[in-house]
């Protein structure tokens, strides 16, 4: 496989020179975004440097236990990120999120790496880490959208939910219309993304693979599988998170407990 050309540190520094353009434009239009942009770029640099170091180590040892530990760390960080970004209560959502992300990711990873790619070494860092990472990143976005939509709607449309219950609906029946709406909110963007993939943009992983020396044909096969697994993993995780969280979130009368959504969210 042909090696990708490295970027020298001096050249990387030159690359940062591009920042001058947004700084000038933001300053000119007095957007107040200059500081935020610079902080964001600084954070990105530091985070990626740290991750780079980690990945170097992971790739060097390529040990099943170490790789799995990294996988668990990614799942836990994803769960905390979803909670803070969607303004959820940790008490009700942390355990359901960790369980649902673990289960969905494990199922889809096992299928993708074990059945489709048929890796000789299942925990091979080159596959196991980046693919799990992309899947988790997508689960994060979709869970934030889906969980928010479900509980916010239930709270805003309490009258409708109570009407269903008080006329004999089971908890499942009363919550199903809200689940339907939450899934529509969470998955419409993903389905739209799948529809136009390749037409509007080349997906990141495919670009990476081509840059890394893979043939476009191989890159496309991976991308197709990746989109399918993203679809399944995100859907599984959203449905599972909400289903599990519901055991903690509703009291014995089917009422949503207080403080499920934090003030800012309400």
């Amino acid at each position: 496989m042909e090696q990708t050309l490295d970027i020298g540190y001096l050249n990387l520094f030159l690359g940062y020179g591009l920042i001058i353009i947004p700084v000038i434009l933001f300053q000119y239009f007095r957007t107040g975004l200059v500081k935020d942009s610079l902080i964001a770029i600084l954070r990105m640099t530091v985070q990626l440097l740290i991750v780079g170091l980690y990945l170097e180590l992971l790739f060097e040892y390529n040990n099943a236990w170490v790789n799995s530990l990294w996988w668990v760390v990614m799942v836990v960080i994803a769960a905390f990120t979803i909670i803070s970004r969607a303004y959820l209560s940790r008490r009700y959502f942390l355990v359901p999120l960790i369980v649902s992300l673990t289960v969905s990711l494990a199922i889809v990873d096992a299928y993708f790496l074990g059945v489709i790619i048929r890796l000789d070494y299942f925990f091979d860092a080159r596959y196991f880490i980046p693919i799990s990472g992309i899947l988790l990143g997508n689960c994060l976005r979709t869970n934030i959208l889906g969980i928010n939509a479900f509980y916010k709607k239930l709270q805003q449309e309490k009258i409708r939910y109570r009407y269903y219950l008080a006329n004999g609906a089971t908890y499942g029946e009363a919550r199903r219309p809200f689940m339907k709406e939450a899934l529509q909110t969470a998955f419409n963007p993903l389905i739209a993304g799948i529809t136009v993939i390749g037409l509007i943009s080349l997906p990141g992983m495919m670009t990476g693979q081509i840059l890394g020396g893979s043939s476009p044909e191989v890159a496309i096969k991976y991308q197709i599988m990746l989109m399918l697994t993203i679809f399944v993993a995100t859907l599984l995780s959203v449905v599972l998170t909400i289903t599990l969280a519901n055991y903690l979130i509703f009291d014995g009368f089917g009422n949503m407990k207080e403080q499920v959504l934090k003030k800012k969210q309400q």
Partner: protein
Amino acid sequence: MNFHKISIDMIRVDDLTLKFDDQPLYEGFSLEADKGEKVTLAGESGTGKTTFIHMLLGFVIPQQGRVSIMGRPLDADNIAYIRANTAYIPQELHLPMGTAGDFFYMPFSFKENRHKKPDRHKTHKTLKDLGLSESILKKNLDEISGGQKQRLAIASAVLLDKALLILDEPTSSLDGKSIQKAADLIFPQKDLTVLSTSHNKWWIEQSDKTYNLDLHGTNA
């Protein structure tokens, strides 16, 4: 209180204290509704009529008091049974759905009510009793008036054929003639216990019993 008495009470509320945002709505309030009785809660807005209904349906938990419905204590073990045997219309209901027919048949989509879905003849008759024609079911929900929607909800709730009917302000969007039609449909049903809230004087007069929440629960 003896056991036999409990079994014929449809609703029995003893010494109830209910607070809303830490403000007591009523303290030591009691209410009784026998099987088949038509009971109305009267009182100014803000006296807690809707909260009382929410309490009966298990949506608001009282601070103090004993409540039993259909002879069973109102608790987490019995709430499914109580709701399964109740039909309820809230004060203002917005359903995100297409036609008036979807709205009307919605409660019959629940497993508990599926076998009660009315045939065309029964639907036609009930709608007619309330001054509606069957063709209204084909209209979009946003094309019909508030009063028509309220009557559709009443028709649907009556056809659910439950032991207890709970109506929150069923007369609020109805004119005098429609109120009379609704009462003519609901009040003669001997086995049906009805608990409603209303400001309407005529509706209150038709009821067997009225509790005035302004006076913290005395008979009006």
